[in-house]
Each structure stands twice: as C-alpha cells, then as structure tokens.
C-alpha cells in the first residue's frame, strides 16, 4: 500500500471520525434519569416495542433518516435473539406517539414491557438522534442518549443506539462491529487476485482494504480494530503483512521471514501484544509467536507433523492449533509458551481452523470439521462438557468460523451453487443466513471489534 492514504482509507478514516463522534453519545439533558433497571435475560423474554422514529422536522431527508434508523435499530435488536417484539400490526393500533409524553397504558395494552423511542433532526448536514428506553410497567427511563454527527450514514446512529440498549443486558452488542474477509470480486481474467474487504456486521457498507492485485488471504483483526494482519503473496512467498487500515499503511513481512521461509495464519493475542502464526522457517510448518511488531519470535511446536492455524483463548494463556501429529488433522491446545500440549478434538476425521469464543459466558471452540466423508461443516466443542454440536448441516461445504465479539454469533463461509458466501448463525446454530457482502467468492471471515 502507498504511504499516503488512498481514497478507501480516507473514507474509512472519515467513518472512524463519525464513529467516535457517535460513540460519544451523551445522556439526554432534558429529562435525565439514571437507568434504574437491567433487562434480565432468562425466564420471560422481555417484549420490546420499537415504534417508528419521530422526525423533529418534516423535511424528506430527516424522514428518510428516521425510516433508516427505525429499520436498522429493529434489525439490530432482533439479531441478538434475546427479545420478543410487538408485531407491526399491534404497533399500528396504538394512538400516535407523543415522544415527550408517551402514554404507557397504550403500550401496556399491546403487551410491551420495554419501549424504545427515537427522534431525529438534521441541521447543517448534522444528524442528531435521541433515543429513550422506558420500562413500560413503571414508566421509568432506563436509558436516554443523544448522538450527533455527519448525516450521510444514519445507520451508524441506529447501531450505536442498539449497542447502548444492549448495555442494559449482560451481553455486549455487536451492531457496530465489522467483518473482514477475502474476496476475488476484483479478480480479472488477465490477473487472478484476492483482496481483503470489510463490511459492517449486517453486510452493509463494504470497503476494500488491500489494493495490490496479488493474493491476500486470512485476515485477522487486531483487538483494537485498527489493524488487520493477513497473508499476502505479493512477494511470491506467502508472508504475514499488517495493514493499518485507518492510516493506509502496510507493514510487510512482519514476522521477518528469511530466504524462502513462509508464514501463514496470523492471529492476534487478546491483548494485542503478540501474534501467533505458522511458519516453516525451521524446515517444518510449526506454530510460532512474535511480538506484534515482529520482534522476539519464539517457536512453540517442533513435531515433524505440520502444525498450523493457531487461535488464542480469551485470556491469552492458551493457544489452540491444528496438527496432524497423530495422523489426521485435529485440534490441540497448549499453553502460550508451548507447554502442556493436549488433544482437543476426537470426533471427525479432519478438524481445522479453530476459533476460541471470546465470551466469558461461554467456554467453547468453533472449528471446521469433516464429520463424515464429503464436505466440511462448522462444529463447536463445549470445553465444559466436551460435547460437540454441529452448526451447519446440508448447506454445502462450510469453513473458517469466527466468533462475534460477544460470543453469541458465528460467521463462516459456505459454498452453495459453486459460490462462497459469508454466512452468519447464532452460537446454537440457529438463524443461519447468508450475508449480502457483495459479488464474488467471499471467504475466510474474521469478525472484528
């Protein structure tokens, strides 16, 4: 990448600025009330009413922004599968909403427990969105926020509001997260290439990261969301590169491979201080770790079998990886210094590409598994029970799982009708859907912060 920020990077930078502005959403001053209750997940599922966003001004642009905010906020909240929602037909039965003085009896009457009211206005190309969350039974305000920023992307305001509402539960929202992936969409007949792209978690807002026309694969987010480590063939030999996406800079050969040695499958430690990766610099493909700047390389495995595809535990104390040391590729776990190696998977004759759930609530590892002959599926092993649950079945071949930062969802790539697409499911394997991430074969997702 050139040192000066390319248009894509500039756009990303602008988005970051917007994100920061929105992230600084302030509590509303007009009727500030401290959140009084938490939304308890478990038992009776709380029933949400999310009426249409109310524009403060009647202009078409504000109304359009309001429509987008309503739709995106509803989708974001539904995505978590934690809440029930009052159906649209009942919402329509409620008398017109006065956002400043909601009549809670109306909402109680249609069975709502939580009421989410949004208002929007645009002035001088700046969008201001107010969001209030009420506990319908008591009429108490659970959350009140005001967000403002450039008006060109109202979606991000809804994402921010959704994540703020999720703070009322014990789970972190993912509405503002992004997914990086590899795609051949810009490949031509003359030049076969694979580049890295980023989309919002819901598949919107695709952006290209690499522009070198070579083969760039296996993206891995840094925990701060500022960088992507990936494997690039731009120097013929596969090496780990680092893209500082908001600076438009690229650091080549981060792990300082020499001669013909290759490096694959980078993975940042949860604190962002280390990178684990596979390298054949010792003459055999083994797991190595290095500091994030490439210094202090240390070899962790030394068997004659190929050891690849490392992934970190949420504490950073352990690393899982793929090894064929006992014949077929299986997952193993070791401590982050190479000690205490144990086999993790036993079911399936080919297990690869681990992804350790980052959530404190769930102790589980997702991976690509060939349970029977034929294609690959996504499986998850629960470390507490050692039970394996199959996430995909009969969807063609699926591989490269990655967890959402809250550990409640998985993304992976599946091949259907000879095309690979990013697919999303929740951690139980329900609610599978293909993400509309754009044309081409879209593979190797990595769900970032």
């Amino acid at each position, binding site marked *: 990448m050139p040192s000066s920020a390319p248009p894509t990077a500039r756009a990303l930078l602008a988005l970051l600025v917007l994100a920061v502005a929105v992230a600084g959403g302030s509590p509303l001053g007009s009727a500030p009330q401290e959140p009084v209750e938490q939304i308890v997940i478990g038992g009776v599922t709380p029933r949400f009413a999310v009426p249409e966003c109310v524009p403060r001004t009647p202009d078409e642009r504000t109304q359009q922004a309001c429509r987008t905010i309503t739709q995106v906020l509803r989708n974001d909240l539904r995505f978590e599968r934690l809440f029930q929602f009052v159906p649209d037909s009942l919402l329509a039965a409620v008398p017109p909403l006065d956002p400043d003085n909601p009549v809670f009896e109306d909402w109680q009457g249609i069975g709502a427990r939580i009421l989410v009211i949004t208002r929007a206005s645009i002035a001088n190309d700046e969008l201001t969105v107010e969001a209030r969350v009420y506990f319908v039974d008591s009429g108490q305000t659970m959350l009140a926020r005001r967000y403002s920023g450039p008006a060109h992307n109202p979606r991000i305001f809804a994402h921010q509001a959704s994540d703020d509402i999720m703070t009322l539960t014990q789970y972190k929202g993912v509405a503002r997260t992004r997914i990086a992936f590899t795609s051949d969409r810009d490949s031509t007949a003359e030049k076969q290439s694979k580049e890295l792209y980023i989309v919002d978690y819901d598949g919107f807002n695709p952006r290209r990261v690499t522009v070198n026309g070579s083969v760039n694969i296996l993206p891995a987010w840094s925990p701060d969301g500022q960088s992507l480590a990936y494997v690039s063939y731009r120097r013929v030999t596969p090496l780990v590169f680092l893209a500082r996406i908001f600076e438009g800079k690229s650091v080549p050969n981060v792990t300082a491979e020499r001669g013909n040695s290759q490096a694959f499958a980078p993975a940042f430690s949860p604190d962002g201080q280390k990178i684990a990766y596979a390298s054949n610099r010792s003459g055999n493909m083994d797991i190595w770790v290095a500091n994030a700047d490439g210094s202090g390389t240390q070899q962790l495995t030394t068997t004659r079998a190929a050891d690849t595809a490392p992934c970190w535990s949420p*504490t950073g*104390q352990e690393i899982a990886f793929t090894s064929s*040391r*006992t014949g077929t590729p299986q997952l193993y776990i070791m401590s982050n210094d190479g*000690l205490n*190696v144990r086999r993790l998977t036993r079911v399936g004759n080919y297990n690869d590409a681990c992804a350790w759930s980052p959530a404190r609530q769930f102790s589980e590892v997702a991976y690509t598994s060939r349970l029977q002959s034929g294609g690959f599926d996504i499986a998850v092993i629960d470390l507490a029970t050692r039970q394996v649950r199959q996430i995909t079945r009969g969807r063609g071949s699926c591989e490269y799982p990655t967890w959402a930062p809250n550990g409640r969802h998985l993304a992976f790539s599946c091949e259907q009708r000879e095309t690979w697409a990013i697919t999303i499911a929740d951690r139980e394997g329900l609610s599978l859907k293909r993400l509309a991430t754009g044309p081409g074969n879209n593979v190797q997702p990595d769900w970032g912060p």
Partner: protein
Amino acid sequence: MRRIALFALFVMATALPARADKDCQRMQVQVTALQGQIADMQRRSADSLTELQRLTALIAEQNALLQRALDDGRQQDEAILTSMRDLGDRVSRVIEQLDALRIAGNVAAPVAPGTALTETEGEGVIDPATGEVGAPVPAPRELYSQAYADFARGNYDLAIQGFTEYMTHYPDTDFTDNAQYWIGECLYGKKQYAEAVEAWNTLFRVYPSSDKLPDGRVKKGMALERLGRRSQALVEYRYVVDRYPTSPAARIARERLNP
C-alpha cells in the same frame, strides 16, 4: 734428515686441502639428505593436513547427522508423548464412565465373595460429621472439564475451587495430578507467582511420577523468573534438560537457559 722433514711438510701441505674437500662433500651429502627429509616431512605434513581436513569434514557431517537424528528423535518423542497422553486420557475417561455407570447401578461392580452388599440411595454425599445428605458430587470428567472451562475463560478462583474439589472427591485418578498442575496454572494466571510455585512444589512432592512434572518444572521456572529469582529458575530448567532431555519441556527449558 732435513730432507725428510721437508718432504713431510710437503705431504701435509698437499693432504690438508684434499681432506677439506672430502668434508665439504660429506656436508653437501648431509645437506641434500636433510633437504630431502624436510621435503618429505613437508609432503607428509600436507598429506596429514588434507587428511585432517577430510576427517574434520567427516566429523562435522556425522555431527549434523547425529543432531538431525536427535531432533527427529525428539520430535518423534513429542508426537509419541502427545499420543500416549491422549491414549491415557481416553482410557481414564472410559474407566470414569464405567465407574459412573457402576454408581448409577447399571453395571454391577465386581464384588469379592462374602463381601456385604450395601444399598446406596440417591446420589447425594453423606456428611460424616452430621450424617446429612449433601449436594451430589458431579462425575469426575464433568467436574474436571468444568474446572478447566473456568480456567480457559479466566475464572481462576472458580477453576481452583473446581480442581480442588476434584482432588478431594477423586484423589486417585489419572487426572488428580493434572488437577494439581492446573491449580498452579490458575495461580500463574492470577499473577500469584509465589503461590503458583508452591502449587507446583506440591505437584512434585505428592505426585512424583506425574507426567506433568517436566511441564510443571518449566512453569515453576517461569514463575520464579517473574519473581526475579532467575538463578533458581535456571536450576529448574537444568533439571528438566538433564532429567527429561527429549521432552518438549526440555526444548523450552534449553531456550530459557540460553535466551
């Protein structure tokens, strides 16, 4: 008489140069011989040097082969060790499952003839002090895995509690020593390095034949280094290199000895 004396003088005068010539010739022969010897020695020396170089190269080659064989051996040992551990784990698991089945009454445990049979009711544990039935003890694998899952997600206190409970209820399984090892890991994760050292010392003392000893020794060394006690850490690393030279832990110990 005088003539005789003069003749003698003449003879002597003529004989002296002839003798000098002979000496000279003898010396020349000797010099030639010496030159030959030196040339011979030089030739032999060159031959020896060539032979020495050949032997040195041969030794280096043999050393390389030996090193490669040693490395291969270590790698094979590591793979075999992993497989053995895996096999051991699986056997232990089968035994645990059998035990669990016996407890559930599905499989009758072998009973020695004449042994009195007792009935067990429910799955609760009777407190010997009070005679009351307490909460049921989870199956060993369940308890162990849950404790490990707590470790993996950073719930170290819960994990220590789980592993301790495992050791209390199942003091004689193949995983009891592992549980003690993991307590050390939990304390290391909590950055309580002195306590981690003590936990691993307990492992060495109580389970002297544990397969976790090499790893435990190296981890103890690492904890000692965190405490600023590098000289004591080196002792642990040297111990592992000497005692378990082909173990994966020994490779890491060597790296720690020569950072």
